[in-house]
């Protein structure tokens, strides 16, 4: 059989403007069962990063069965046909590597980092758990408890810990982004073996995944090994259901006031914005830099330096596949109120709507873009994760080289436009937290 049945594309992109040229070269091909493969060679240290990204996340769940994608992530470490319970982690440790996984609304991502002479071991392990469903009842009940403990730790036992899921539910009042990735305790309790198996048969198939290997490897040998371990895995028999993504545009500002065991008043704001990959998304990223990147940013100066109205604040843009969320959160300093903090934030947003950012700030944001782009390439696991991500979301791993160009092509006018269009009160939800007054 000739290699590269589906074509081996050599992708090259040139670096961006100026005197810095950094470029990630990679090869990509697809196996007959549909598994997408991306290889990138970098022999500077004897290490490989392996990343398998399944295109399934909490948005593929159903109401009443939430938390599945993430629970499943835990179960994938519980053994497979030739690997008994607990052995997965043991094999990787024995080989001198480490591994982990994460689940988002859109993807479930597994990664292994090992000395490069252990590459076949990782491929054997990953292919075995892609081959066949092997979850036992015992594993299901243990991992259900572990996940519930994770939820207590992340959400229930942490001040403001419920803010992210409360905001998510409000900003996505309907549809697949409405529920949190970790799910609800009730749904986790009711997860049956049948549910779990169905989930696997549908989504954990090679045609719904991408495999990335980055690091100290030889291209031909690695391709041969991948074919050896992954070619005989059958594609899914069940079709991957259409998502029919649902969402409802917000029509007015939602404000909720909450009381609880929190140390100080706080405000959480979320705006619904376009999804990752859109032009508006890149413009909003540049806006975030002006607002909150570093101690010279506008919000740092106003909230922390000039007025000291907050003890801490954060701006984050979460790019998801079908929508984006722009978030602002701040904790009021002693003697300050959450309302006053929100007012200051709103003043800064209004300023961005009214006038263009200065040439100086604009240039500063671009420099930060270039720096963070280069910084991301420093580890094999980082590169593997980025390639898998760009493939899964956009079928375009080349974005690892070209995305920076898109960020750099944003103009000051576009920055003002996206703020006018998306950072509007009728597109946002606001949560206020008040400490419970002790008697």
């Amino acid at each position, binding site marked *: 059989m000739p*290699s590269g049945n589906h074509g081996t594309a050599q992708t090259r992109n040139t670096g961006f403007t100026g005197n*810095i040229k*950094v470029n990630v070269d990679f090869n990509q091909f697809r196996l007959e069962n549909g598994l997408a493969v991306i290889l990138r060679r970098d022999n500077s240290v004897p*290490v490989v990063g392996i990343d398998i990204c399944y295109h399934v996340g909490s948005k593929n769940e159903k109401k009443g069965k939430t938390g599945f994608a993430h629970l499943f992530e835990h179960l994938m470490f519980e053994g497979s*046909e*030739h690997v008994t319970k*607990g052995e997965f982690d*043991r094999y990787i*440790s*024995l*080989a*001198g*590597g*480490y591994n982990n996984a994460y689940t988002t609304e859109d993807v479930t991502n597994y990664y292994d*980092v*090992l*000395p*490069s*002479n*252990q590459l*076949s*071991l990782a491929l054997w392990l990953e292919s075995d758990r892609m*081959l066949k469903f092997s979850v036992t009842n015992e594993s299901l*009940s*243990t991992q259900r408890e*572990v996940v519930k*403990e994770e939820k207590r*730790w992340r959400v*229930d*036992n*942490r*001040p403001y810990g419920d803010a992210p899921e409360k905001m998510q539910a409000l900003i996505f009042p309907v549809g697949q982004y409405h529920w949190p990735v970790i799910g609800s305790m009730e749904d986790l309790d009711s997860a049956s073996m049948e549910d779990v198996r169905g989930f696997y048969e549908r989504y954990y198939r090679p045609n719904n995944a991408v495999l990335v290997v980055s690091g100290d490897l030889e291209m031909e040998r690695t391709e*041969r090994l991948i*074919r050896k371990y992954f*070619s*005989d895995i059958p594609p899914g028999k069940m079709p991957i259901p259409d998502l029919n993504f649902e969402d409802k545009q917000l029509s007015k500002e939602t404000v909720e006031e909450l009381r609880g*065991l929190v*140390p*100080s008043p706080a405000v959480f704001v979320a705006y619904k914005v376009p999804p990752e990959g859109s032009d508006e998304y890149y413009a909003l990223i540049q806006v975030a830099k002006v607002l909150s990147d*570093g*101690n*010279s940013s506008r919000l740092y100066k106003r909230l922390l*330096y000039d007025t*000291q109205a907050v*003890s*801490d604040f954060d701006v984050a843009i979460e790019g998801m596949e079908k929508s984006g969320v722009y978030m602002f959160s701040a904790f009021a*300093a*002693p003697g300050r109120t959450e309302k006053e903090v929100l007012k200051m934030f709103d003043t800064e947003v209004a300023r961005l709507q009214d006038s263009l950012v200065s040439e100086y700030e604009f*240039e*500063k944001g671009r*420099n*930060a*873009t*270039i*720096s963070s782009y*280069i*910084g991301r*390439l*420093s*580890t094999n696991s980082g590169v593997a994760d980025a390639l898998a991500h760009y493939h899964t979301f956009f079928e375009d791993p080349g974005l690892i080289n070209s995305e920076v160009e898109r960020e750099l092509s944003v103009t000051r006018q576009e920055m003002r436009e996206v703020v006018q269009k998306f950072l509007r009160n009728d597109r946002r939800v606001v949560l206020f937290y008040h400490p419970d007054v002790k008697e």
Partner: protein
Amino acid sequence: MTYSTTTPLDRSKPPKPGLPSKVTFPKYFEGRCDNGFRYFVVENHTLPIVTIGFVAKEGALFDGDLPGLGSVTSELLTKGTKNRTATQIAEEIDFVGGSLSTNVSWDASQAFVSVLKHHLATGFNILQDIILNPVFPESEIARVKAQRLASIQQLKAEPGYLADVRFLSSVFGGHPYGQPSSGTEKSIAKMTRRDFVKFHKTHCTPGSSFLVFAGDIDPREAEKYVSRRFARWRGKMYAPSAIRAASKKEKGKICIVDKPGAVQSALRVGHIGIARNSRDFLKAFVMNTLLGGYFSSRINMNLREVHGYTYGGKSTFDARMLPGVFEVATDVRNDVTSETVNEILIELNKIRDTLPSKDEMTMVKNYLAGLFPIQLETPQQVAGRVIVIELYNLPKNYYRNYRDDIMKVTARDIQAVAKKYIHPDRLSIVLSGSSKEIAGKLKKFGEVAVLDPEGNKISEL
């Protein structure tokens, strides 16, 4: 390329590894100025980034009666120099897309700047300025203090923070290691400009500090920068002030920092551990990894994978200039709290009383030896190791021999260091959680004191 897929693949056994690559700790350059100031260069031109670290070899251990002094002093370095205001420093580093940070550990005060190669001069100039010319302006002091107080107030709502503070105080008593190195509300309020000036002057001198350059730079270029600024730096030579090691041996009471309504408890169990430059350190480190230092460790397997009590459990030897803390840390739901304490005690006794199996030994050693090159992927990581060698006066070939030394550790060594450094009869047990839910069942392990977040006793059981 030919290969055949006619015979089905035998998946029953794991594939054999290929020949391991030779892993060497990268060579690095060491230079010295006439005034005793030293610098190191970890050269790596893969990416056009340069990181420069400044390290002074004394940290929070010297906070004295003002916990957090080193930490606040270090934060203030970026808040004004003879040549730049706080805002100018922030503007200058942000404009080139760089990063600037300072921190204090128990054993060092450090400052790091990271910039793209073509902004190296800017990065270096800011770094040297904050070290050589800080002015600690009163207005900035007031700001930083107010911010610290606010963040301590925030932290006091975190179960993990409350448990840590009480636990360290229980383990170390009045020793500096028993105080929070980020400060307390009292100590922060008391600090004045004189304290910061004095701390910086005393603990940041040419003889006691060094620079590490990592990334896209060679020794000649580094030398140019160093000689321009640091070669003429004057200051008293390094004279390590003597602070004794803590020596508490008696068992601590079981303390619950009460958090009514908590659905989980943050649990800390431990006692005084080992010093970083102890001859036993590497063995103790391997022993701890096996016990609770990685995912496949006994404690995590027991608490998480077998019992489902927790999302994760781990143990640590925080080895410092003086013996630091040994602790087991986890977060568990209320109804299995005493069961968890019991399992931890079982594990602590087991590692002393029995030899680890051959399999466990192979796994932990392979894991640590294999992880080593993965942790040397970036020049910044290599620089981090160089800093460890210098801080703790380890032999220069320490990391060159590291993998071999790990592989030499035997099951008997593990048991011997477990007996020497793990003492179930000296444990402090501290929880932050809902006393109403958990106190009763903990009585079987000893006297239980219920405390408020400030450490005042509410009741005793």
